[in-house]
């Protein structure tokens, strides 16, 4: 998404000017006045204003009824950072990003290199790997809730087969989030694989042939030619992992709902459990603002540092 934003931030103007010369100014205003306002109105009303209001409400103690009149200054923000559940959420969001980078993306790349080869059934494998991505997070979470179920689930069946007592991973606060991480990888590796497939197909075959002629081994070709040429795809993939981590909510709810003892909270489930569920509009808005600042900071700095050439 960031490279989308970047392409728009640097709007090329020369081409449009040329175009206008051919067209003239005729009838320009009716189209502007009729075509822009509907989108503009909806966007302002439901995206921009709520974000601004979140910043405003975050300084009040307010339950959402009547007008916000109990000004509390920065107290909501202080409360956030004092909550251990919020720290859990931050750590968990970080863990998701780490797992994405260290496990999910290498896995996706590894699979992408295989399914882009000329082997029978490559297309079928691509489809299968992409399938979890198409399913709703809620459905995926529910399916894995069954997989992990300590009484009827797959894990329990396997444990019993080996004569072990079935584990209740999702109820164990030391293990639960790792179980969630596994589901995240299961759900999203196919999407990253597709990104890499697109990246691999964009690589000029003649470069690899040249490497062949120079006597490079398969591994050398991969590390010296393919990987450097995939740089922008890797950065894009990491970016999506970060964005996805910051939005993660739907999958957590059916799996654990943020429990046990807040060990599987993410930023958005934290906002939901502590802001929405308790109708603490001020506190919830403050969480929203923190999340907003994290999103914008990450998007901008990541773009500036890693994606400036893409």
């Amino acid at each position, binding site marked *: 998404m960031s490279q989308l934003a970047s392409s728009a931030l640097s709007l090329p103007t020369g081409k449009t000017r040329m175009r206008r010369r051919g067209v003239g100014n005729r009838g320009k205003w009716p189209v502007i006045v009729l075509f*822009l306002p509907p989108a503009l109105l909806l966007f302002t009303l439901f995206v921009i204003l709520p974000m601004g209001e979140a910043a405003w409400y975050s300084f009040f103690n307010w339950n959402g009824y009547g007008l916000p009149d109990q000004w509390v200054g920065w107290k909501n923000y202080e409360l956030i950072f004092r909550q251990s559940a919020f720290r859990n959420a931050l750590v968990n969001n970080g863990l998701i990003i780490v797992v994405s980078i260290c496990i999910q993306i290498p896995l996706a790349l590894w699979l992408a290199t295989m399914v882009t080869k000329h082997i029978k059934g490559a297309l079928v494998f691509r489809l299968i790997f992409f399938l979890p991505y198409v399913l709703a997070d809620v459905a995926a979470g529910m399916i894995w809730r069954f997989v992990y179920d300590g009484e009827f689930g797959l894990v329990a069946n396997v444990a019993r087969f080996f004569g072990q007592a079935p584990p209740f991973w999702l109820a164990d606060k030391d293990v639960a989030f790792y179980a969630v991480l596994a589901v995240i990888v299961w759900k999203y590796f196919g999407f990253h694989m597709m990104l890499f497939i697109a990246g691999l197909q964009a690589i000029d075959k003649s470069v690899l042939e040249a490497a062949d002629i120079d006597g490079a081994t398969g591994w050398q070709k991969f590390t010296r030619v393919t990987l450097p040429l995939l740089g922008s795809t890797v950065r894009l993939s990491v970016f999506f992992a970060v964005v996805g981590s910051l939005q993660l909510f739907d999958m957590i709810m059916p799996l654990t709902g943020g429990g046990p003892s807040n060990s599987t909270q993410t930023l958005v489930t934290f906002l939901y459990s502590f802001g929405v569920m308790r109708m603490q509009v001020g506190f919830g808005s403050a969480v929203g603002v923190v999340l907003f600042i994290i999103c914008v900071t990450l998007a901008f700095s990541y773009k500036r540092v890693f994606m400036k050439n893409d």
Partner: protein
Amino acid sequence: MTDTATPIDAAIAPSSGRSLGTKTRTYFYAALLIVAAVVLVPLITTALGGFKTLGDLRGNAFGLPQTWMVSNYTDILLSQRYWLQMGNSLLIAGLTVFLVLTLAAMAAFVFAHVRFFGSDHLLNYFLIGLMFPAATAILPLFIRIRDLGLLDTYWGVVLPQVAFGLGMSILLFRNYFRGMPSELFDAAFVDGAGYFRFFWHITLPLSRPIIATVGIITFVGSWNSYILPLIMLNSESKYPWPLGIMVYRGEFSTDWQLILAFITLTIAPTVIVFFAAQKHIIAGLTAGAVK
């Protein structure tokens, strides 16, 4: 990959994968099959689990059902709630897609073809929406929808969904519109067509691929969305299926065989449509990312 291709080989078979040895091939298939199993086993056991009895599920989660409890499925298919939820989801997604396509295409057309003071800033304004998820502003959004009297209506879900979909959609449309040859534009204007006729008779008919892409992204997003309906809807009769599945699970908390049947039936449309239109769906969902 283990066999080093000779230059002559490379000249004959330029695509690097043609000369895979048997060893490599076996390794590839073994790896791919293992990963495919990890993906498919939870899905298949879910579908099969819906046919079992609870006792069967407890001892035999992986195998075929001892007795096929088809009634688990038929009871749901004959119930009103399943169809109601599917209908709700379809209605919400349909309205969202229609509005996103209309509003985004119109706005993008202006950004692509009409040059006016401040148009760059206005476009950047829409792109702010790409930077944060709807969840950040969910509470003020709830209050806005409540004050507009739209709580517990389909519009209360549709309008915010459309608003948050606009940024990406406008960008995709605009880039596509700008990629069209400008001769088209010049020719149309020489022939005396105004902006509106150009939009309707030339731009839109040529934009089917991008309409499909934006439509698919929006539809999948809306069909699967959970947090907005969760916050905006109160009555179960309006719930789309992701909410319905959670309610169902709450009701039949340990009757996993019924829950599994319900999950299977709710994801069945997605899976069927995915395999029927996989090319378009994969292209659509990754195009939004890559472009």
